[in-house]
């Protein structure tokens, strides 16, 4: 690009052609097109890629629109799937209950502090530790625990004990079998999940005869300020309409003016117990900077990739190496192991050259050549007859040795 020869005067001519031989072509202005037309050409050329990109974009946008905005965790009040609990939450809202979905411990605490309502806690993975749980206990007037673990029971409901899972034989719906108002109104609920034993135990699982000390799907303290629901599935959209599930759930949850629906997540883990996420330590500008550098790299690619005009093709000449046929024939000899044929070629060529050197007719028989060669070199006729006439090599090694001897003889005759 540098060293441009730009001048209005003709520079020193380097051509050895006579100046009269210059041919001047007529001036050509532009390509007869327009901006619009070249844009059209580019669009046409890249049409497959543009179509592909557009399809990709449509798929991505459709995916974004179609995807639920909220988490898909089970028993989430915004999950419309069969395992979600949107139905319960919506019905409660219609009935005037203020359902607040808390996504973190702080949110739950704030909501409880603002309105003294019921707290629904569903923490199957046990993300919360003792301190966090006890902070909730102080704030909430009424607790509904869904399938609580040992830790939760210890802190929030010391009077209620876990009693294992619902036995497999209890397949049918469970009956209330207790005097409390909510369960007895509900009558029956779907069986499953865990069983608990508390001051008030309903929906006993297993043999109806052992109802006295039985453990059940519903347990509560005497004051009903802590209620444990052993089967979380009865809240789900899928089975809420079965048996008395809806009655039990709505009565249990719709008791107070507001309901804080809290499902702890890994982000609620106590900070002190966990190693710090290194990504959180990065400065704030890192992500935007990465994006910007990506853009810069794209620009650099576009800059370097744009070619200065189309390629010009070179009509390539045919390249045939003349000795190729001889080399091919040599490989054929070798692969077929035709030592005889190779030996015959070498012998004939040597004989004809020796005959030429000794000035005897090329058509003369081999014996004549042998005699003449013996006279010239002083070697014995028998030796030369064996070498030039009768010897037939049988192996590759023999062929090599014999052909070298022929060559030596030829040089010997040539030198004398």
């Amino acid at each position, binding site marked *: *690009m540098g060293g*441009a020869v730009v001048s209005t005067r003709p520079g020193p001519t380097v051509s050895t052609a006579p100046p009269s031989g210059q041919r001047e072509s007529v001036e050509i202005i*532009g390509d007869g097109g327009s901006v619009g037309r070249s844009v059209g050409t580019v669009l046409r050329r890249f049409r497959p890629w543009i179509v592909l990109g557009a399809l990709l974009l449509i798929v991505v946008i459709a995916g974004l629109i179609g995807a639920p905005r909220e988490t898909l965790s089970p028993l989430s009040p915004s999950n419309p799937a069969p395992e979600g609990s949107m139905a319960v939450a919506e019905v409660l809202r219609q009935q005037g209950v203020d359902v607040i979905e808390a996504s973190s411990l702080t949110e739950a605490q704030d909501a409880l502090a603002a309105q003294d309502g019921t707290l629904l806690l569903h923490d199957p993975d046990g993300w919360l530790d003792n301190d966090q749980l006890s902070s909730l206990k102080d704030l909430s007037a009424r607790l509904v625990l869904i399938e609580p673990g040992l830790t939760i029971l210890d802190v929030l409901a010391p009077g209620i004990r876990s009693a294992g899972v619902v036995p497999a034989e209890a397949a049918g719906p469970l009956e209330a079998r207790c005097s409390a108002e909510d369960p007895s109104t509900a009558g029956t609920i779907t069986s499953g999940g865990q069983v608990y034993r508390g001051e008030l135990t309903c929906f006993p699982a297993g043999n109806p005869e052992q109802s006295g000390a039985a453990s059940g799907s519903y347990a509560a303290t005497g004051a009903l300020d802590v209620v444990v629901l052993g089967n979380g599935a009865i809240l789900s959209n899928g089975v809420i309409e079965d048996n008395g599930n809806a009655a039990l759930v709505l009565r249990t949850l719709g008791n107070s003016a507001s309901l804080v629906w809290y499902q702890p997540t890994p982000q609620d883990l106590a900070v002190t117990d966990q190693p710090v996420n290194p990504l959180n330590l990065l400065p704030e500008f890192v992500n*935007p900077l990465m994006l910007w550098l990506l853009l810069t790299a794209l620009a650099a690619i576009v800059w370097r990739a744009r070619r200065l005009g189309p390629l010009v*093709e070179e009509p390539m000449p045919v390249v045939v190496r*003349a000795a190729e046929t001889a080399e091919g024939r040599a490989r054929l000899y070798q692969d077929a192991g035709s030592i005889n044929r190779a030996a015959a070629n070498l012998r004939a060529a040597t004989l004809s050259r020796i005959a030429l050197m000794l000035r005897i007719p090329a058509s003369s028989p081999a014996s004549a050549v042998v005699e003449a060669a013996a006279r010239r070199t002083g070697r014995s006729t028998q030796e030369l007859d064996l070498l030039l006439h009768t010897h037939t090599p049988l192996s590759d090694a023999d*062929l090599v040795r014999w052909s070298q001897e022929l060559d030596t003889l030829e040089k010997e005759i040539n030198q004398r």
Partner: protein
Amino acid sequence: MSITGRFVILTLIGALPVVLFPGVVSILLWLALLVLAAGLDLILAASPRRVGVARSLPESVRLTEQCTSQLTIRNHASRTLRAQVREGWQPSAGARNPVQRITVPAGESRRMNVVLMPERRGDLAVRHVTVRSFGPLGLTARQLTITSPGTLRVLPPFHSKRHLPSKLRRLRELDGRAAVQIRGAGTEFDSLRDYVRGDDVRSIDWRATARRRDTVVRTWRPERDRRVVVVLDTSRTSAARIDNEPRLDTGIEASLLLAVLAQRGGDRVDFLAFDRRPRARVESVAKENLLSALVTAMAPLEAELIEADWSQVPAQIRSISSHRSLVVLLTSLDSGAVEEGLLPVLPGLTAQHVVVVASVRDPRLDAMRLERESASQTFRAAAAERALLDRAAVTARLKQLGAEVVDESPHELPPKLADMYIRLKAAGRL
């Protein structure tokens, strides 16, 4: 359109505000700045559609010599054109500086010289001129490819002309020799001159001596105005490369040397390149133009991948010359091709003309013949011997049919063919 390195740097500088004020706003603002600057630059760039391109090319150039393609860039736009211009030569044209930066004020024109060093004989093509017009900020450019075809004819190099002086000297030595040394059917009576010591007494013209007081001898000169027809085979066998040069190119060198020599020797030279149909033909025209006519005709010759049709050659030669001529066939001596093609028609040719068959001999075969160290080398030596024996057999058949054969390596063929011509001329066989 295209963007420049400056645009990329400006984008990179944008990382600074992104770091200082992280967030969407700084990114969007800098993006907007970039787009605005690029758009403005594009709008302000001189339109490459208003650029006129004219090219001035030499008529022809000899291979290994340098020439210049002069491009005149005229700016018909109302803004100054700052552009990068590329002339689209095919790679073997050897353009040294096809991409140049150029600034042309509005309404003016500038010349751009592209130095070419062709690497191949033949017609080399230039297809287009690409103009990339930068805006005043140098951030973006408008690019346009203007179709502006042109061809440069690259002539064969005629390396063998270095043999010309020595061969011409030998040719001149034939002139004025005493008759006995070169007496033959073809020599012509030239003039009478005084006897000097050393002249053959048999060349004394006794009649003239009787008329004058001094002894007078006759002098002779070689026959003149004979016809030489050079037939160059462009069939598939001419594509073979020997010593990294196609047979065709060696044949061109040999026929150029022969043609120039024969023309200086006073003979008429015709040239024919032939495979299944005539590819090039040069008639014996005005003497000064012969060489340039020959090289121009030979320049675009390429080896065709078809078998030569030798049965048409006698008719072609007859259409060139109906008299007895020296017919030089530049072909190959590969046994198969010659036996089926040339041998059947050769008797008809030798009956009327003096025929010389010239062919390139592959030095590689001679080297292969002598390498006998390992088994595979020995087999190669055997194969090379077979090829050489076949060649010798073909040569013997050709000589039997009355043709002269010149079979030499690529460097030796042109001078040896010239020697053959001189020998035939000296012997008066033309």
